[in-house]
């Protein structure tokens, strides 16, 4: 197969560069907002009477910026690099890609401003008002068009597993985003009554299941074999993992509604499939871990590989937790409290966030042709995030168990507040750690892309 024609380093992979910087910059904003919100749980009068800094306005900003500002662009940066590489061609249109990056950032700014101003549809993960929905859907369509045209002009006949995941993630999320945000009802963006809850959690769960997870898996499938210098362990397992992910993950949204009056048969479907999630999860993990078997030294020596491999371990933890939490007996304790917040942080920061960052650190030297500005800073960020996310998991699980058991045994929510106060303080401290890691990461990535003193090899 013909290799890429050599291009001037500055022009290469412009879209990937754009998404790298998007991800790094919005990670700072998203984690800063999360940190301030965590402080407000400790000191609720901290931002008294500043409406746009209210905890309840910061929370959706934090969640949406993490999902669509930090993690998704980080993973897309990787995809915009490896999709053309794996197809042995160039991206169909870098111009279109840059337009997408600009549109994406405009949507993020609009998201932040509207949510801060209280313009929200009030549905978790689907808060954005209609014009922003339109912008995001357009961006997804542009990305899909760019990818599919790249596929069309490919020089390698076989599509590697990473390409399947990237294509499916973008195509499926375009559909579920429209569906979940009820784009055909621009004024409220919602259905009415119980069907609204069912649709919302179908969509909310698929943000992880059909966007973050496939894009993360795509990055891991591409980068781990390269770092380990060994072929993928099994093609059959990647087939099983891919199809079972799409079949099973889409069924489980209703496990958020087990204690709500929704049809029982739907709850049964959600619980059974939540347990069945072990199939796609383990198919992916066994494939990656067997590829890396005996090669941990190589992974340890590569900062991108290190982030990604850690992400796969977090994926194991978060998936086992997820299956357990779907069991009604477990959920009696874990529902509505900090346990769930801990679970979400392991998933989005520990798994897909770690893999997004790993992707960035892996591709940046390859798109700039220069070494990373600072390996030391990247390693520092790795440890800060690892400590931060492990700390979140421990602290939030403890306080979630305190809340859950206290409520179940007759304590009121108000009485339990003082019992979890200390954990909220530690949570804020860990939030500061994550925010500072984002600052150092942004500096490192910015210098690596723009004013890198390293020499061309």
């Amino acid at each position, binding site marked *: 197969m013909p290799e890429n024609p050599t291009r001037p380093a500055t022009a290469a992979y412009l879209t990937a560069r754009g998404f790298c910087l998007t991800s790094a910059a919005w990670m700072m904003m998203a984690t800063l907002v999360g940190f301030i919100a965590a402080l407000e749980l400790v000191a609720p009068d901290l931002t008294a009477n500043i409406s746009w800094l209210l905890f309840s306005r910061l929370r959706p900003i934090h969640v949406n910026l993490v999902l669509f500002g930090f993690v998704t662009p980080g993973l897309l940066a990787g995809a915009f690099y490896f999709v053309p590489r794996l197809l042995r061609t160039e991206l169909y249109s870098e111009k279109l890609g840059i337009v997408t990056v600009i549109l994406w950032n405009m949507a993020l700014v609009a998201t932040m401003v509207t949510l801060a101003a209280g313009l929200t549809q009030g549905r978790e993960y689907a808060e954005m008002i209609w014009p922003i929905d339109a912008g995001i859907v357009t961006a997804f369509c542009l990305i899909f068009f760019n990818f599919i045209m790249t596929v069309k002009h490919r020089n390698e006949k076989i599509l590697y597993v990473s390409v399947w995941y990237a294509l499916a993630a973008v195509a499926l999320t375009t559909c579920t985003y429209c569906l979940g945000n009820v784009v055909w009802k621009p004024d409220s963006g919602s259905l009415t009554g119980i069907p609204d809850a069912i649709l919302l959690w179908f969509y909310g769960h698929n943000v992880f299941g059909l966007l973050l997870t496939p894009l993360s898996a795509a990055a891991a499938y591409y*980068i781990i*074999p390269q770092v380990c210098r060994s072929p993928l362990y099994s093609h059959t397992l990647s087939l099983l993992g891919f199809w079972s992910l799409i079949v099973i993950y889409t069924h489980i949204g209703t496990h958020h509604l087990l204690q709500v009056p929704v049809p029982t048969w739907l709850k049964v479907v959600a619980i059974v499939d939540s347990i069945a999630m072990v199939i796609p999860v383990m198919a992916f993990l066994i494939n990656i871990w067997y590829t890396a078997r005996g090669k941990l030294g190589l992974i340890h020596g590569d900062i991108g590989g290190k982030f990604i491999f850690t992400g796969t371990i977090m994926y194991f933890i978060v998936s086992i937790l997820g299956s357990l939490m779907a069991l009604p007996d477990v959920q009696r304790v874990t529902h509505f409290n900090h346990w769930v917040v801990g679970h979400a942080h392991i998933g989005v920061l520990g798994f897909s966030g770690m893999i997004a960052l790993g992707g960035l650190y892996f591709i940046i030297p390859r798109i700039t042709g220069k070494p990373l500005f*600072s390996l030391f*800073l990247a390693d520092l960020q790795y440890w800060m995030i690892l400590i931060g996310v492990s700390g979140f998991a421990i602290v939030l699980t403890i306080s979630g168990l305190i809340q859950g058991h206290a409520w179940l045994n007759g304590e009121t929510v108000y009485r339990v507040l003082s019992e979890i106060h200390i954990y909220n303080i530690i949570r804020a401290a860990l939030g500061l750690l994550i925010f500072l890691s984002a600052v150092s990461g942004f500096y490192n990535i910015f210098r690596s892309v723009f004013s890198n003193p390293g020499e061309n*090899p």
Partner: protein
Amino acid sequence: MYYPYFLAYILTGVFIGIAVFLWALKNGQFSDQQRARFLALEEVRPEVAATSHGSGFQLYFIFYLALAGVAASFALVGYALFFQ
């Protein structure tokens, strides 16, 4: 009584699955797959030096900033744990 519907749904799924699988097997869908495993590797690895190139001052500054952050985090925890 939703069990009959469930059962019908599951059985339909199983039969469709088996039919598609048999068709795929016969059709040669599973032949010649080994090369797919190597696709991620067929790239020229760019020679990337594994050394840090940041200027001393900036690096130290960021390092101390990060260190200050870590220290502040621990101080906050310490304060919360021992002085309240």
